[in-house]
């Protein structure tokens, strides 16, 4: 349904029609602004204004509370405090998200490649299979990893028998479990854009690479990977960003030593410490914007948006 339709619409653009001047079919006048207005207002009121409010809140005097109200005192110290108290969680979030993203690439690339080039008439079936599991609630899926990785369950028993884990070894409540959960939960966000990019590649290009004396590995590196770059960049962002802000996996599959920045923000809001929570939130957003900017520049893809 949704995602399936979305994917097919991401497929090769329909043949461009020729004949100048190109009739773009775009109308001028005020009707366009009128159509933009309701949605634009919603975004302005509930996305832009809240973002500004969040930044403002991060500079409030932390001595205030919900009941007594907050004073705007340009209290930059909130940021220093937040980073001092929650620096490790912050760094951990970025590290876990990075590992999960790399794992998603390693798992997602073969899958996307197989669907694009090897699935033949089962292409749509495989796409459905990628999407379908993700309509079962995020939380329920994550909870079922509690079982899969559980101490006395088949997987751990098997790994113990094989001596991959020690006799007292375990998987649940470890960083491994958290990263596994993150990888699992965001994998489709890697597979779908990668597939959309790969699917557009004309297989003859790969044959041409071979014809022009490139080994399969060289062809993959110089042709396939190059052309899949937009999908890879989009997939990386779609995986990394939500993973860095997630706290569900850490909460359900981790332990107190695997807490991520999302856990802390949530708890700070719960405890009523709005300025610190807001400062941590703004820091997270800034770090992500910075990383995304550097990454996109490095990857040299401008056609993302």
């Amino acid at each position, binding site marked *: 349904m949704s995602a399936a339709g979305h994917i097919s619409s991401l497929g090769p653009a329909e043949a461009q*029609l020729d*004949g*100048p*001047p190109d*009739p773009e079919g775009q109308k001028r006048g005020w009707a366009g602004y009128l159509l933009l207005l309701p949605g634009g207002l919603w975004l302005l009121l509930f996305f832009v204004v809240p973002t500004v409010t969040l930044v403002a809140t991060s500079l409030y005097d932390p001595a205030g509370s919900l009941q007594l109200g907050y004073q705007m005192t340009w209290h930059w110290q909130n940021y220093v405090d937040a980073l001092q108290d929650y620096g490790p969680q912050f760094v951990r979030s970025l590290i876990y998200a990075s590992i999960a993203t790399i794992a998603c690439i390693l798992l997602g690339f073969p899958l996307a490649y197989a669907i694009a080039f090897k699935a033949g008439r089962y292409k749509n079936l495989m796409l459905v299979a990628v999407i379908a599991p993700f309509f079962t609630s995020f939380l329920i899926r994550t909870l079922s990893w509690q079982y899969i990785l559980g101490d006395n369950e088949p997987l751990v028993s098997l790994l113990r028998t094989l001596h991959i884990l020690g006799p007292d070894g375990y998987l649940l409540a470890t960083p491994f479990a958290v990263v596994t959960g993150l990888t699992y939960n965001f994998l489709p966000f890697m597979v779908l854009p990668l597939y959309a990019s790969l699917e557009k590649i004309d297989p003859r290009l790969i044959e041409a690479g071979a014809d022009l004396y490139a080994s399969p590995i060289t062809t993959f590196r110089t042709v396939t990977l190059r052309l899949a770059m937009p999908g890879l960049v989009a997939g990386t962002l779609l995986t990394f960003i939500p993973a860095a802000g997630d706290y569900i996996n850490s909460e359900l599959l981790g332990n107190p030593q695997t807490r991520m920045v999302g856990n802390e923000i949530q708890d700070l809001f719960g405890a009523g410490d709005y300025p610190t929570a807001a400062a941590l939130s703004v820091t997270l957003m800034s770090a992500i914007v910075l990383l995304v900017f550097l990454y996109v520049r490095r990857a040299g893809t401008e056609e993302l948006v």
Partner: protein
Amino acid sequence: MGTDLQLTSVTKRFGAFTAVDDLDLTVPQGSFFALLGPSGCGKTTTLRMVAGLEEPTTGTIMLGEDDITRLKPYKRPVNTVFQSYALFPHLTIGDNVAFGLKRQGKKDVAAKVTEMLALVELEHLAKRRPGQLSGGQQQRVALARALINQPQVLLLDEPLGALDLKLRRQMQLELKSIQTEVGLTFVHVTHDQEEAMTMADTVAVMNEGRIEQLGPPEELYEAPATTFVANFLGQSNLVSGSVAGARGDVIDLDVQGTRVVADKARARVTSGEVWAGVRPEKVYLSSAGHDDGSGVNTLSDGVVSDVSFVGVSTQYLVRMAWGQELTVFEQNTGARERFRAGDKVDLHWRPEHTFLLDASQDASAGVEREDA
């Protein structure tokens, strides 16, 4: 004058680009009119302004006594056969054809649709959808969908461009006979000169937003007004020369040291430097030094540099003493001598086949590029 279509000083700019430049044009009622030109010449923009899909920057468009310049497309008695047809993929063929009548709230729609589909010989496909039809069938549906509204002007935007060559020839004849049958004004936009000449009674050759020349196909071909028309419509040999004098109906020229005669009727300039033009099929060859009759123009001492046999004719390229290569088409009647590369030849043609153009123009304007 009934309902002639009249464009008066129409200009259309897209930002800094002028697509149509101060165009004046009258299309008489009931005529089959072709706008011919290369990509980007402004012909499609002109058509879209008549359809109401673009608004002119300046100028007026009249249909009979009515000013339709700023009328919405759905308020003008003008219909279009779109490039690649633009058939509604979600409607059946019958519903596609009925679309215009239903929007106008006309009666007896079903009967009229059946009748119209019969005219284009598609009545058995009324329940199908466009995706299930061949290109030629889709083309006819597009035509039927427009014609059923009995517009005062029918616009055709490269209607045959998507068809293969054989089908295109067949559809050209069909379109022409339908036009004769229904007697409507057809304005046909194309970049295919053969298509324009086969079908239209009047052809306007457009280039860079302006009309280069307008007239019946034969006139455009035999007496081109500009180097662009000479090259775009068929091929031409253009040799630089100068007018030496005039006597009666003819003009004497000096072409690269040889005296050449031209008719005044086909001279766009009558003095000074000129391009002397002649169509390749009007020229015939003889071995060098063999006088081939008197009263014809002769250019001597060419060397055949290339010979291509194309079935009905043989095409020669002949390098002249001044370095230019001229093209000659000889019909393969069997009555004429065949030449090989390297043979020395003289070129001959009748004086009335010479046309004279202003030498200030680019001699290669309108030459078709390889990709065209």
